[in-house]
């Protein structure tokens, strides 16, 4: 099957610091990939490059055969790559439904439709549907700052879904969640896969990463040290050393 997303020899340097070094990966349609690694391994930097927040120093990112590295984040979002953030980034003074509509509006912002009323019932209903999908149907009119962390994370997923993306990048979506909430998240990720979405997730919560990922990539100090099925990665000596240290 032809990959949906191909990352080839991606490198990002911040001055003398190499945050990501020569990382390659590929994502197939309807696949769930996990990216794990200790703090500072370069996982979020990798997401930031895929979503256009950072331009890579070197390397290629190809989405549906088009090179997208260095493009503006809004262009990449409009092409169909949605993401969430490691530290929740809701528009705090906007309601949950307005947060979702912000992303839903990507179909209107660059067209004459930008003069349309954003809260028109047909748009608001769509946003409410997405919030209901992530279990926030009753909280649609709450201001984002009043939602709990778990709900803010769900709202971010709804917001990413509003872009109608083919790929969703989930950056530590299980962080700070209780066991039950993590289980609900796993269920939600599987549901999204069934609906045809491809997902890359960064996870510190190994249970979530191992349970949903079809393939895992392990980063350490910006370098890809291991890749393979969750079982294979778990046995990899390099991974064990990266997490636990060597004798």
């Amino acid at each position, binding site marked *: 099957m032809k990959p949906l997303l191909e990352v080839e020899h991606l490198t990002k340097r911040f001055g003398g610091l190499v945050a990501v070094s020569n990382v390659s990966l590929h994502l197939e349609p309807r696949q769930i990939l996990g990216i794990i690694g200790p703090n500072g391994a370069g996982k979020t930097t990798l997401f930031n490059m895929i979503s256009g927040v950072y331009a890579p120093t070197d390397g290629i990112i190809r989405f549906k055969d088009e090179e997208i590295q260095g493009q503006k984040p809004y262009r990449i979002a409009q092409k169909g790559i949605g993401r969430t953030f490691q530290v929740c980034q809701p528009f705090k003074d906007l309601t949950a439904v307005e947060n979702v509509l912000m992303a839903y509006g990507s179909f209107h912002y660059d067209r004459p439709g930008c003069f349309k009323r954003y809260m028109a019932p047909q748009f608001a209903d769509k946003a409410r549907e997405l919030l209901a999908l992530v279990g926030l149907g009753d909280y649609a009119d709450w201001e984002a700052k009043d939602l709990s962390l778990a709900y803010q994370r769900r709202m971010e997923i709804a*917001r990413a879904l509003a872009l109608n993306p083919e790929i969703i990048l989930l950056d530590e979506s299980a962080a700070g969640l209780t066991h039950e909430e993590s289980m609900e998240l796993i269920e939600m990720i599987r549901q999204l896969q069934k609906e045809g979405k491809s997902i890359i997730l960064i996870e510190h919560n190994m249970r979530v990463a191992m349970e949903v990922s079809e393939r895992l990539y392990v980063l350490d100090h910006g370098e890809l040290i291991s890749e393979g099925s969750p079982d294979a990665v778990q046995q990899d000596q390099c991974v064990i050393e990266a997490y636990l240290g060597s004798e």
Partner: protein
Amino acid sequence: MIPPYYLTIGTFVCINILLALSIGVLSGYAGQVSLGHAAFMAIGAYTSALVTRNLHFPFWLAMPTAAFMAAVIGLGLGLISLRLKEDFLAITTMGLNFIVIGILLYAPFFGRALGIGDIPVPSLLGHELSRFEFLCMCLALVAAAIVLLWWLQRSWIGLAWRGVREAEEVAQVMGVNTAKFKIFAFVVSTAMAGLAGSLYAHFLLFITPYDFGFPLSIQILTLAVLGGLGTIHGPVLGAVILTILPEYLRFIQDYRMLTYGLLLVFVMLYQPQGLFGHKSFIMRHLKPRKKSS
């Protein structure tokens, strides 16, 4: 018959409302700071004065020309804002105010320190507008500006502006072309300031560079901030209060500005969202409370 004094106050209220709304668009909606908005008022005032006096444009054509000229410079500032943020943008806009005043003061074409006089009184079908008619026109323009902003704020543009204001990087990842909407905010805002400048010039009939100095920029910002940024009614009410209040404080003469300043300090200390901003003390008590379920 309304006394001329009240007509003058009413006209200045309208001009200040337009200025407050213009800064409201930029700072309240799009979250961009401007400490030099008087410059755009000056560009509007001088454009309108020069094209009516030298090129014999009718006022009705001069007014949109003034707004257009201010918007063109505003577009340039918008492009600059793509590279500058917050404090740096504020200082740049302040610098722009000084540059404009400097040009007006030193270029003979603009009348230097003596400014421009003999600005024609607006006329319609050969009839010169009276002060009352001028006020009615100003009120109509204020109403049009309010409708325009109300329409914009409930459109996707308004939502995009709020995204830019709250978290620009996040809005971009949500598919919002933030650069485009920042520039659009600058264009709308500066066009409104230019329009206010045109009204000012054709009301006073005589303008000098000193009318549009840095203190005026601060005053414009104060109108909107005191009323409540991020709303339409806030800047409108802020402009009404701060234009009329100094008139009522005349009885304390020498302490008028001191009282005025203290009032501002207290409002900012205890109501930083402005007197009529979202969730301000006044708005919380005016809005009906939700019944608990």
